[in-house]
């Protein structure tokens, strides 16, 4: 029989010893059947003799242990834990069987003998003793516990507790508020009172914006602090960037005409001078002209060529938040809830019917159109959305991701999320529905954005410093309520809650929010340094990347100038002189939402299509503009995210990770060589006699997860690699009523008859 259940990994360590920056409380001895609790975490209820299902078939194997509900998580502690194998990413704050309460989508209790089933909410009663508990998680896991051997009353209590505690009445009741308060006081003195090693700009102070203005060469734009203390707009950040020609007074006066007082604010500048701007709708349509006359000329003035401004109304051309939510629910259903075999039959059309990929494509397509305007047409673009807090976040960040290689580095990407999502007032609290209060506000916009990023990454695998594992882990972090990033609806809301929080927890005034309630970007909160190396893309061609040219090792170094030259490129529209210069001058100052069709050689082709076709006819430069191919055949389902828990879809010792494994090993070897070479050169120059050995200091900071193999160590992919790596389907997707032997996955569409007729009967 071939192995369908995971072949027992023979563990080979590729990791240097784990950094011991982990808190002592987390590392309790393994034998005890006690929960690992974080500071401030308390056990609410628990029940013994529970069986956790490990596969879809409930009659099959399982893990016995204790089920616990705390004020932070649902925890399962196996009585006899199988020797843990390092075949997955290990979270520093959550065990293999833990689920944060915020990650629960639905809590379902079942009584099989009575044939009853109930979805539990907050403060509810349960009239039967559950024989089973099924937890549907926001990260797409489905976890199942059996209570057949457990005390019925305690089982019931735990179920009710889980349901109750996963519906917190108010935001400060989320465990992060308890945890971070304790953590702050406990670790005081050990910490230098600044932003620590956090290299990601947060955009909560003018200097972050200033640096961004300088980096992009946006000399005609300035940081403006009229919204200090959120005096003007409740959802904009305190510091915004506006055209230099607009005075504070002007901005204040006109802000009242915009929804939420969200005036046009600057996002990014193209080296050619075009700017990307975002704004809310104008609340009073009668004021449209007034606004047009104030803001549009100012934005035009901030363009070195005074070129026209084009406004794109996203509400009119993209799906809304409810569309997205319903598409996500459907695609999740097909990927993890429906029976594998049944959904297999009409898989492609089912995926199409969810419309998720269609929406992904629509957002990418619209963003690419904006890229054309900024890059190909040299015009500034205003993204407009009713509230400027949802669709604008997606499009503005995608446009920047395509145009500016800086945002494809890890720190750059995080700063992009910070700038266009967190500080721009995306309602993470409502969209994530952390309080489970208002289902109609829930919408997976950030998830949609991550999927779009993945699509670009899938087409340009060397263009990003980070991996799809990073994107997946980032999406999972939304459901862990310990970081300030995804907990609030706006910077103002965050400021308010954290002020109260600081007061309640006796945190001194003036202490930096980032210190007492850190964002997700400090990844050492969740993963060891060694595990974080899974975020690094070995293929990345970044600034200063070495390459071989004519047998010589060279370094790509990009000065600002060459960067602008490549981004600007030479485009057909400019070359052919087809840009209607006078025309746009004449229309300057008016909002244009329609493009004038250019003359073009190719029939039925819009200027942007022409621009894209031109671009695709040249080899792509990873450190420059990137446009994804948007033909439907070239967009794919993000398998790692959607299928990582599905055991039937797991390829053992296969999948893209096996290529990543080899790349990672090779890059590790290259980095060791580089370090040797550097030390040689250092020796030469200083005249020192210290010569490098193989166990140099670099070994502790190696960037690659898989280390270069030695001769004794065969280079074949380790047995624990699967297409789900670094996640594991085992015990994480136990749908109900899915029966079938493991072989059935291979027999799809085939029937078997055992025949009594053997070839013996043939006249041999």
């Amino acid at each position, binding site marked *: 029989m*071939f192995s369908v259940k995971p072949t027992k990994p023979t563990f080979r360590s590729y990791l240097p010893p784990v950094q011991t920056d982990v808190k002592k409380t987390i590392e309790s001895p393994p034998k005890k059947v006690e929960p690992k609790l974080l500071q401030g975490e308390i056990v609410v209820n628990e029940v013994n003799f529970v069986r956790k299902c490990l596969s879809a078939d409930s009659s099959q194997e399982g893990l016995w242990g204790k089920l616990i509900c705390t004020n932070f998580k649902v925890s399962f502690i196996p009585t006899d834990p199988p020797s843990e194998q390092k075949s997955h990413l290990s979270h520093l704050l959550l065990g293999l069987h833990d689920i944060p309460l915020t990650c629960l989508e639905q809590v379902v209790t079942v009584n099989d003998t009575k044939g009853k089933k109930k979805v539990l909410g907050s403060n509810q009663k349960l009239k039967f003793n559950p024989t089973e508990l099924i937890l549907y998680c926001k990260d797409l896991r489905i976890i199942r516990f059996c209570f057949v051997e457990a005390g019925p009353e305690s089982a019931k209590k735990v179920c009710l507790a889980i349901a109750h505690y996963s519906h917190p009445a108010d935001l400060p009741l989320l465990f992060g508020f308890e945890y971070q308060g304790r953590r702050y006081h406990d670790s005081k003195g050990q910490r230098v009172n600044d932003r620590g090693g956090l290299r990601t700009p947060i955009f909560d102070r003018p200097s972050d914006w200033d640096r961004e203005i300088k980096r992009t060469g946006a000399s005609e734009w300035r940081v403006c602090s009229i919204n200090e203390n959120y005096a003007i707009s409740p959802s904009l950040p305190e510091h915004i960037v506006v055209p230099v020609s607009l005075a504070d007074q002007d901005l204040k006066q006109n802000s009242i005409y915009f929804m939420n007082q969200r005036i046009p604010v600057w996002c990014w500048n193209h080296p050619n001078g075009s700017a990307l701007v975002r704004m809310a709708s104008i609340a009073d349509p009668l004021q449209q002209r007034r606004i047009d006359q104030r803001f549009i000329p100012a934005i035009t003035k901030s363009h070195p060529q005074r070129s026209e401004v084009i406004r794109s109304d996203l509400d009119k051309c993209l799906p809304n938040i409810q569309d997205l939510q319903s598409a996500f629910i459907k695609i999740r259903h097909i990927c993890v809830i429906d029976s594998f075999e049944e959904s*297999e039959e009409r898989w*492609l*059309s089912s995926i*199409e*019917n969810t419309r998720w990929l269609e929406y992904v494509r629509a957002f990418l397509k619209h963003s690419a159109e904006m890229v054309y305007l900024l890059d190909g047409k040299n015009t500034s673009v205003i993204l407009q959305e009713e509230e400027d807090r949802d669709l604008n976040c997606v499009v503005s960040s995608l446009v920047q991701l395509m145009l500016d290689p800086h945002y494809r580095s890890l720190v750059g990407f995080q700063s992009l999320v910070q700038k266009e999502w967190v500080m721009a007032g995306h309602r993470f609290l409502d969209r994530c529905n952390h309080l489970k209060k208002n289902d109609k506000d829930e919408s997976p916009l950030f998830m949609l954005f991550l999927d779009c990023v993945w699509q670009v990454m899938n087409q340009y*695998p*060397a263009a990003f410093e980070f991996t799809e594992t990073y994107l997946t882990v980032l999406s999972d972090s939304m459901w862990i309520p310990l970081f300030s990033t995804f907990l609030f609806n706006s910077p103002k809301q965050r400021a308010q809650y954290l002020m109260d929080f600081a007061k309640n927890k006796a945190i001194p005034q003036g202490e930096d929010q980032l210190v007492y309630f850190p964002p997700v970007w400090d990844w050492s909160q969740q993963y060891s340094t060694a595990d974080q190396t899974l975020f690094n893309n*070995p293929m990345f061609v970044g600034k200063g990347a070495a*390459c*071989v040219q004519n047998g*010589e*090792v060279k370094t790509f170094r990009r000065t600002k100038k060459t960067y602008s030259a490549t981004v600007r490129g030479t485009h057909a529209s400019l070359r052919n002189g087809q840009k209607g210069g006078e025309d746009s001058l004449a229309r300057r100052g008016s909002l244009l939402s329609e493009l004038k069709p250019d003359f073009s050689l*190719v*029939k039925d082709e819009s200027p942007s299509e022409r621009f894209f*076709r031109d671009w*695709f*006819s040249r080899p792509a430069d990873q450190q420059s503009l990137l446009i994804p191919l948007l033909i*439907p*055949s*070239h967009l*794919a389902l993000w398998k790692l995210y959607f*299928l990582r828990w599905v055991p*039937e*879809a797991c*390829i*053992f*010792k296969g*999948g893209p990770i*096996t*290529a990543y*494994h*080899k*790349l990672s090993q*090779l890059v590790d*070897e*290259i980095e*060791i060589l580089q370090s*040797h*070479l550097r030390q*040689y050169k250092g020796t030469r120059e200083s005249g020192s*006699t210290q*010569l490098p*050995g193989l166990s140099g200091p670099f070994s502790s900071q190696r960037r690659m997860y898989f280390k*270069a*193999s030695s001769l004794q160590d065969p*280079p*074949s992919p380790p047995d624990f690699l699967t*297409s789900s790596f670094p996640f594991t389907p085992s015990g994480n997707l136990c749908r109900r009523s899915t029966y079938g032997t493991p*072989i059935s996955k*291979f027999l*799809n569409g*085939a029937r*078997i*008859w*055992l025949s009594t007729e*053997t*070839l013996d009967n*043939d*006249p041999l």
Partner: protein
Amino acid sequence: MASPVSVYSPTPMADRFSSTSRESLKMELLADVSLLPGEERIIDKDIIYVCPFNRAVKGKVLITNYRLYFKSSEADVVMALDVPLGAICRVEKMGGASSRGENSYGLEITCKDMRNLRFALKQEGHSRRDIFELLFKHAFPLSHGLPLFAYMSQEKYGENGWNIYKPMDEFRRQGLPNSKWRVTFINNNYEVCDTYPTILAVPVKSKDEDLRRVAAFRSRGRIPATGGGYEGDEYQNAELVFLDIQNIHVMRESLKKLKDIVYPNVEESHWLSSLESTHWLEHVKLVLSGAIQVADKVSSGNSVVVHCSDGWDRTAQLTSLAMLMLDSHYRTLRGFQVLIEKEWISFGHKFASRIGHGDKNHADQDRSPIFVQFIDCVWQMTKQFPTAFEFNERLLLTILDHLYSCCFGTFLYNCESARDQHVRSKTVSLWSLVNSRMEIYLNPFYTPESGRVLYPVASMRHLELWVTYYIRWNPRIRQQQQSPVEQRYMELLALRDEYLKKLEELQQSSSSRLANTPNTTSSTPPQPYTELHTPL
């Protein structure tokens, strides 16, 4: 300036045509076309290519006994088309002398390799008559008493690909004959079965006499012989497994539907359901899951008799895919060639009938893309196991191009007996080409793991449309010779080697320096850099 329509030439010397310099345009338009040895010009003519992606392009067409070549004569349109005549399925006249509308009079060419071409000519003086007749004649030489180009080609290669597969060597590699299986020569003159090879491995207990009697009962004398050649209990205790794999006609229609949704343009609005309605991936899945069952049975110690009605279509697919899963040797570049020679060419897959080489009867019901489907299955496996195959996607593309091109003798004829010895002596094997430039077909990620059995996941969740084959003519898609991941890995390998070289140089110079200054006692020269390696 319009962007060039990508030139993809499946000819062995593709590189020669890929660049079109402006200078050559000023000179004789077709002067830079270098023909293959043995290739002869038939006709050239001014013509308009009615490009489905673009507008119509004026230019010149050249027809040889091997190819149809078109080149734009418009200064701002750099474009060329290069189509082996063997890839042409059908040539039709389009419009008449009195047809209205621009470019309505000309030729319509349907190709076997997922594209169609339309050419327009001047509507006067029967301008298309000569070109139509000549194209028709040379595109379908067998229907006109002409030889296939494989017999005209004078191309020489360093290696003779006909020697890649030697049946006795291959039996020996598998440890045959042994106590259970013996090698028989009863079919030496194709007298038992004319579609089987001359050397067969059969169970020890079956006497040649018996085999002859069995042959009389089986379709066309095709007795059970070793597929994988794996040991087991002869044919006893066999279990019959029926797989729901559709017949050759269904497969043909399925690929036709697929072509409809990808050429010239990809169906935009309902892509996935359109793709589903072609059933192409579903068929691929059924073939793969059938092969998985075969492989599973064999690896758990059972012998498997694989059969379909005749034993040369689905049987060939299932045995060869199962062997690819079970035996890592077949996943090497040369091993894969042996697999194709053995399970497809030698065991009598009717290439001539299924492909219709040089035959004008485009509606022949015997035609079917069975081999294309097999290569697609192999591609799906390479996608699921990026490090398990020594060869890359480019090899699979080359194989499919020459399945049609008639440039090589490899895929000609229906079986060994029809193939006779002239093919080997008078034509070149495709493997001669492949093995003379192996480096471009190697997968840099390949990690040999002998003995490893590969079980792909035959699920719609993992099966993908092979866009680099089926959608390669679309100019909106950047044509890449290599996957970006592969390309990056190669760059990194080069970088590693460069560093290694530098380090070695430094080590040498510093050790000589140290030798000159014997006073520096505290230092030890670094160990020669040998401890780390990333094998190819």
